[in-house]
């Protein structure tokens, strides 16, 4: 077990590097730069552009500085945009450690702020879970609980009551969850609960009250709920037809015991499989939810950074997401061993 964990953790490093390389290539392939803004605005003139490029290190070579190598400068050879970001390089004349030291880089758009300030640091005087990452984490976990709490029982019941009204109701919910886009669903819920029923304000003034978290959680979790319900149902149906279930019933066990002790654990394996990456996806925030509810998470940063060509933000958020997904997959693999003793970590 320990060896498995160490091996998986060591694998994180090369995977992160490959992700960084691919992201970096794609980022710089897209034409335009961080200082190309809305065309109806005044554009930066050439002189200011040059000064900004120097300030942000965009005047360095992208991968490897062969000009420096030809002068015999080995340090300079690696003092390029990619290595400066990942490992470290000269920033404004001083050597600064990069991503591996937790320095996620200066944001190109929100000048003066580093990416870790924007994403990981809470506003003045607030707790760590009030940072953008903290908000998204909380919402993601809530959405996951919501999806699991309702999706799994729904799937189980519809499997046990196959082809009854309950089954059809759950089918309806599942289909609508998968087909209706979440921005349509979101505005729909806002109109019902905020405008007609006045149960919540349309725009929350503060995220301290638990009431305002309900709508975003439902909108974010509904898709996963639908998927989970269908998956649980299908998985239960398969397990229900197994021989050992018939044996258990023949032994004289009550129906409830059969379901809880024998069916459920086996039926949940596929559900656990999707739970890991699903959680990673939920935590990484949803651009649409954040725009619609003015939710202070980090999903919006990720998407707008691409359009703004905020290179540090793009790299940092992509690498963090890659890390989260790997950890999620690792955790899921570990949970398997508890669910099914036949599965071993090697």
């Amino acid at each position: 077990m320990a060896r498995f964990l160490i091996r998986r953790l060591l694998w994180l490093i090369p995977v992160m590097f490959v992700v960084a390389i691919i992201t970096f290539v794609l980022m710089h392939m897209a034409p335009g730069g961080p200082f190309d803004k809305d065309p109806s605005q005044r554009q930066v003139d050439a002189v200011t552009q040059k000064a900004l490029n120097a300030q942000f290190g965009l005047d360095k070579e992208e991968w490897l500085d062969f000009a420096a190598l030809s002068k015999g400068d080995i340090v300079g050879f690696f003092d390029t945009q990619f290595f400066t970001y990942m490992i470290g390089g000269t920033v404004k004349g001083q050597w600064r450690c990069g991503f591996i030291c937790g320095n996620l880089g200066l944001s190109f758009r929100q000048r003066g702020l580093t990416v870790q300030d924007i994403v990981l640091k809470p506003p003045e005087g607030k707790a760590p879970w009030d940072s953008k990452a903290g908000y998204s984490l909380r919402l993601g976990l809530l959405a996951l609980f919501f999806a699991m709490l309702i999706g799994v029982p729904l799937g189980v019941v519809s499997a046990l009551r196959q082809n009854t009204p309950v089954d059809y109701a759950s089918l309806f919910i599942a289909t609508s969850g998968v087909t209706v886009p979440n921005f349509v669903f979101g505005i729909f819920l806002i109109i019902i609960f905020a405008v007609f029923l006045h149960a919540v304000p349309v725009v929350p003034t503060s995220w301290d009250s638990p009431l305002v978290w309900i709508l975003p959680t439902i909108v974010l979790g509904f898709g996963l709920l639908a998927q989970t319900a269908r998956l649980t149902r299908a998985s239960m149906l398969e397990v229900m037809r197994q021989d050992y279930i018939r044996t258990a019933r023949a032994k004289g066990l009550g129906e409830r015991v059969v379901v809880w002790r024998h069916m459920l654990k086996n039926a949940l394996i596929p559900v656990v499989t999707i739970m890991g990456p699903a959680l990673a996806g939920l935590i990484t925030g949803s651009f649409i939810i954040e725009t619609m509810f003015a939710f202070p998470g980090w999903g919006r940063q990720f998407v707008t950074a691409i359009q703004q060509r905020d290179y540090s933000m793009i790299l940092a958020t992509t690498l963090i997401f890659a890390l989260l997904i790997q950890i999620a997959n690792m955790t899921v693999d570990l949970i398997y061993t508890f669910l099914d003793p036949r599965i071993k970590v090697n």
Partner: protein
Amino acid sequence: MKKSALFAIIAVFVALVVVACGTPAAPPAVVQTSAPVIQTQIVEKVQTGAPVVQTQVVEKVQTVVVEATAAPAAKEKVLRINLGSYPDIVDPQKSSFVNEIAHLNLIYEGLTKFNEKLETVPGAAESWKYNDKATELTFQLRPGLKYSDGSLLNAARYKYSLMRNIDPHTAGEYAAITDEIAGAPEWRGADLSTISDEDLAKLQATVSESVAALDASGQPCKEGADGYAQEDCLTLKLTLSRPAPYFHTIMGIWVSYPAKQENIEAGGDIWWTSPKYQIGNGPFILKNMEPFVRARFEPNANYWGDKAKVPIEYAYITDSAVAFQAYKNNEFDIIGLAAEDLETVKADATLSKEANIYPGSCTFAVMFHQKKEPFTDQKVREAFAMALDRDGWVKDVLRGLGAPTLTWIPPGYPGYKASDSWGFDPDAAKKAIADSTYGSVDKLPEITDTFSDTPRNRTRNEWLVSKWKEVLGVDVKLNPVESTTYTALTKDQATAPQMFILGWCADYPDQQNWLSVYWKTGGFGERIAYSNPDFDKLVDEADQTVDPAKRADLYQQAQDLLIKGAPVAFMWNNVNSYLVKPWVTGLQLTPQDAGWAGAQVPTSIDIDASKMPSQ
């Protein structure tokens, strides 16, 4: 399993519903009212009853309040505005977007400012004077000016801000706008990686002489912190490298706003995120700024002019549908009116009265690259311009949110003059093609229309292309590109497309900003390779003419010359469109409103609490 599982599911649903609907409508946190007795009565009424009845009760309470008119609304007076996107940076010498300027205009004030008629009027400076040749501009500041924290504001502060704007280390987006100051372009353009420290210091010293803070006897003010505390340091003398009688207007925009040096240094690169460092001299104080959620501004008691009457709150909802719902739910007092919601608003009796649609500060045109065939030929440009039905454009594409134009400077701005050149005339358009060097449409090379790929732009450009097909019979290819790519392409003459829509919005209300800054050789018009030496001569002369009447006439001649050459197809002026609640009083609408209706003169705004519904 059957019964208990079902029961559990139902229980969960019921719990959710109860939790969601259990608490009554979220009232605002702070309720300050002068008549607490009446407030308690209303609140008690609202809390009784189930959710369905609650709605009815609210309506009843509303009508009671309106008829009685005696009970003031149980609400704090605050102007709640949805600004749109959250600013990237709120730093006077580094900001450039409208939403950023909307913050700066509340916290700070420049040497001059613009009134409701967009005339340049005294701000922190009570008067200013040019020398005969308009190469020296001397500002006289008001005595006794204070920052919001009570500390002294004098000319030394403004000197620091102007120097910071020009300083190459700042690299502000609008740094070039003060290039008329002697020595500014050289210092600003210094290559920091190669220049020696002494040379850099020399360049800085030249600019420091051009931006002189002087005391009552004409001597330079003391340096550093002593200078900031010097009470008689009230004169700011600017030396310009060439006559610029419009420079006092430029001193009204945000680049000269006097942020405090010690705050900037104490806060470092992120000084602007914290209200304790954003100490300004404007009509409001920044109380707090919660990124992407809220910003709160309180009236500044230390402001020299008319004190603001109500605090202001900005919210940052970018989804216009959500903002619209929130507005209808009385959660916002001012929001931007999106074109998608215009039909709904016009059809509604209440909302149509709350819509404020008035001329904006921008002009948009279809740009033709002067060096790319076939637009090298003026006749072709004329033909394409005359094939466009601008009234149809405003009616069908903009859905009424705009105004057609055939000239460059928009109405409401100094130098505006309506034109009738190259207006919609299909026959003349066809004739122009025949008269051109190509002779007929099938001899024209391939023409593409490039635009930033959004659904709105798709509709717009498809309209344009269909018009040209209809009138001229020419097939123009649509070329959508990703938005940042589009910006990158249009920035440089070599990569700029043959044809694309582009606009210009006024930085400050003066012809120089519209004509010289944009169309002079080397200005923004360089991207489409526009260069007319006669035009350059006219605007150069106008820029340096002190006599206002002669100056206006020269600019007019330049504008006429510009239009005559049909370099682009001037199409439309934008409008500012906002929804404003009826209890917001004292709004003064100007085309230059940055971000919200009445933003240019925020101190006259008040809230009539008696008109607000109480819920």
